[in-house]
């Protein structure tokens, strides 16, 4: 099957990869939106959406009511609603950028998914683990950061093109916030790669390599980086919250003071694209965190995946690895929601102060500390 795939023309391969990215992320984003509603409801002691019932599915015994209680049909109804709603465009907007903004939001988040490995399979030929990845580039983490950072343009454009005060403020906040936290985020992963890359001429930024280095034998070898470098993980996590505009860094939206923030003037399908993008972003962010700090597809610290699946069929091993990985990722998505319904939103000046005066110095100190520490360890 892999041979068949490789024999296809390169543009067909690219199209297949693109479809996989879309086919994975959009349903996940949809499920996230439902999960968000359910999680918020449960935390608030409510049942959440549980009314809608599809004509056919809803009447299946046992399964139908369960799906209904879970609000699955609400998801469908909402999706259909977004597609069929009247496309209202306010008269005062800059049409070109107004339409462009949702696309700019969606495309980077779909692009980043190609460099994220989703699991690993045991390649019998080389007797090694191979990543389940769409594009195994050497600059993995940098690609994620680079393309991910483009999504800020969606917010800026939406805010600016709406030509109205609240969206504009939302857009301005978004750009300032993303720039501020991107620095800390980038700095926080440097120790990881310092550790991963041994001295020598070769060096990699591949995410697969990061997981690999968490799957070694020995005390440090099998230790997940969250234990090895907790401060890095902490800074990365905080920055991740800020970068994905999730509570408590929900500045661009902040419905309490900005109505809807950058998407105030948006509605129907365009609005929903923003949210698919946000959830996609969240998914990628969680995946990267899992890869960097939580051992990727390794089931437990000091328990690497490779010996577990070595004897299994390739597809089963791959599936198992992906399952471990996605399980952790989904826990992180849940964490995003959990935090959202736990913490209050920061004030904008607090966000800025935290970013520049607390997190950035901390990240710099962290880099210096680990650089020295790793140097000492490597020397010894």
């Amino acid at each position, binding site marked *: 099957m892999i041979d068949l795939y490789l024999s296809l023309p390169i543009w067909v391969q690219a199209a297949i990869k693109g479809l996989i990215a879309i086919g994975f992320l959009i349903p996940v984003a949809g499920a996230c939106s439902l999960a968000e509603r359910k999680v918020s409801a449960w935390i608030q002691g409510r049942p959440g959406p549980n009314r809608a019932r599809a004509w056919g599915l809803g009447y299946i015994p046992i399964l139908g009511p369960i799906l209904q209680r879970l609000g699955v049909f609400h998801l469908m109804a909402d999706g259909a609603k977004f597609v069929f709603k009247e496309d209202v465009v306010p008269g005062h907007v800059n049409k070109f950028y107004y339409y462009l903004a949702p696309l700019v939001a969606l495309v980077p988040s779909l692009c980043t998914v190609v460099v994220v490995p989703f699991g690993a399979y045991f390649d019998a030929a080389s007797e090694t683990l191979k990543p389940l990845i769409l594009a195994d580039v050497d600059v993995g983490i*940098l690609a994620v950061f680079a393309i991910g950072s483009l999504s*800020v343009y969606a917010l*800026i454009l939406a805010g600016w093109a709406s030509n109205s005060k609240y969206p504009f403020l939302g857009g301005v906040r978004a*750009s300032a916030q*993303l720039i501020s936290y991107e620095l800390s985020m980038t700095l926080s992963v440097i120790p990881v790669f310092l550790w991963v890359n041994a001295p020598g001429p070769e060096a990699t930024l591949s995410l697969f390599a990061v997981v690999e280095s968490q799957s070694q034998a020995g005390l440090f070898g099998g230790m997940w980086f969250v234990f090895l470098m907790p401060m890095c993980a902490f800074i990365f996590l905080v920055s991740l919250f800020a970068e994905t505009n999730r509570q408590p860094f929900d500045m661009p939206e902040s419905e309490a003071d900005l109505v809807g923030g950058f998407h105030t003037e948006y509605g129907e399908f365009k609005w929903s694209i923003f949210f698919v993008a946000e959830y996609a972003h969240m998914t990628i962010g969680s995946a990267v965190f899992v890869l960097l700090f939580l051992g990727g597809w390794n089931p437990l610290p000091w328990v690497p995946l490779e010996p577990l699946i070595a004897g299994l069929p390739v597809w089963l091993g791959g599936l198992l690895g992906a399952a471990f990985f996605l399980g952790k990722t989904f826990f992180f998505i849940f964490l995003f929601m959990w935090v959202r319904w736990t913490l209050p939103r920061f004030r904008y000046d607090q966000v800025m102060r935290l970013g520049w005066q607390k997190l950035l110095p901390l990240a710099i100190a962290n880099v210096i500390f680990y650089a020295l520490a790793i140097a000492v360890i490597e020397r010894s």
Partner: protein
Amino acid sequence: MADILFYIFAAMTIGSAVAVVINPNAVNSALAFLVGLLGVSGLFVLLDSFLLAVLMILVYAGAVVALFLFIIMLLDMQGGERKPFSRPTAVAGFIGAALLAVCATSLLQGIGALETAEAGSAIGVGANLKHYADQLFTTYLLPVQVVGFLLLIAMLGVIVLSKKFEGLEDIK
């Protein structure tokens, strides 16, 4: 395939670069600049310089342009009034045109004269992270520092120019 992509990226880069210059709307210019940077980064990808491509987006497209847009939006740029040509403008324009001509001539003369590295003999600068870092901190240390200092000066210049010194008229 690679050729087609090259032309696409090249056209994208040049077209948007022209748009940056001629577009009267500052936001359009900034976004055209972004598109241009994406084109450049595409060209880097075609050269197998993934690292440079990614850094291009990360540093320029990601941060600088965002900051740039941010400033433009906050400064509330009204389409500036066209000022009549003054004598210094004319002189500067002439010098600029002359320099351009010199560059163009030398480029045309240099076609084929430049030595190209043998394919596969050495890794291109920026293709490999470690190699890139090594170069940056040894061979190109001084240029990097100088360029950084220049950037700082440019930034200060922008602040001075864009700041409206209201209420300071009498001091002037």
